[in-house]
């Protein structure tokens, strides 16, 4: 089985790209692949805990937790998070926070990289 890195830059609200990326991660896990999931830029919003579900907006906290339990490695860009006021204590449990070089290292040893750009 292979290793997949998904890098995503789109925000939780205002785009469906994160919804799609999580579905992609789930499909890869279902096929037995290893998945690293990197969020940077506005996508760091996904790592914030205590998201509240409204039917008009994407609510992905539950899906993230489910995928985390199944082994998806979720990592957020620390600088992008801090710049937005998403501090470590407000980050969902289980998320890692690293600098951008972590993403490039993940690209290094991945069989495939799916890079999903920003808005």
């Amino acid at each position, binding site marked *: 089985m292979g290793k997949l890195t998904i*890098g995503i*830059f789109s925000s939780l609200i205002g785009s469906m790209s994160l919804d799609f990326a999580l579905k992609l991660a789930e499909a890869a896990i279902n096929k037995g692949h290893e998945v690293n999931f990197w969020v*940077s*830029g*506005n996508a760091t919003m996904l790592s914030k805990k205590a998201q509240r579900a409204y039917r008009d907006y994407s609510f992905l906290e539950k899906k993230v937790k489910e995928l985390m339990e199944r082994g998806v490695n979720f990592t957020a860009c620390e*600088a*992008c998070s801090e710049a937005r006021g998403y501090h470590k204590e407000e980050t969902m449990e289980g998320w890692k926070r690293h*600098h*951008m*070089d*972590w*993403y*490039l*290292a993940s*690209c*290094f040893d*991945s069989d495939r*990289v799916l*890079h999903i*750009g*920003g*808005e």
Partner: protein
Amino acid sequence: MAIKKLAFIVDKPPYKTETSRLALTHALSSQSVEIYLKDGDNVEPFLAFIGDGVLNCVKNQKSLTMYGVTSLDMHIRNALLFGLNVYVCEEDIMKFGLTEDMIVMDSDHPDGELKTQIIPYTEIQKAMETCDHILFF
């Protein structure tokens, strides 16, 4: 020991969104990626600006003065100083009526030898074909 080539392809213009800035900051982070890798392993990134993305390369940007944020041309100069190849699509430069003297062509630093390369799109495509991963911004 292995070197993986990464292409950072930028087709978004500067400032309207964060996208092109993220391309540059991620590419520049290659300077410290070795801390996560085995001895001898590394990544070799290059930056290519195509389409509207060539507007990132216009020199003398004033975002630091006007908005207090670093400019994209500062990041491009740093990329050149750190040894990243920077390619700019020749056809798209012409499309915008830009000329070489309007583009960031060097790091503007005494230790920086690398120059921006304005090349046809076909050459950029050839460079992309040699890469392990393409990151499209």
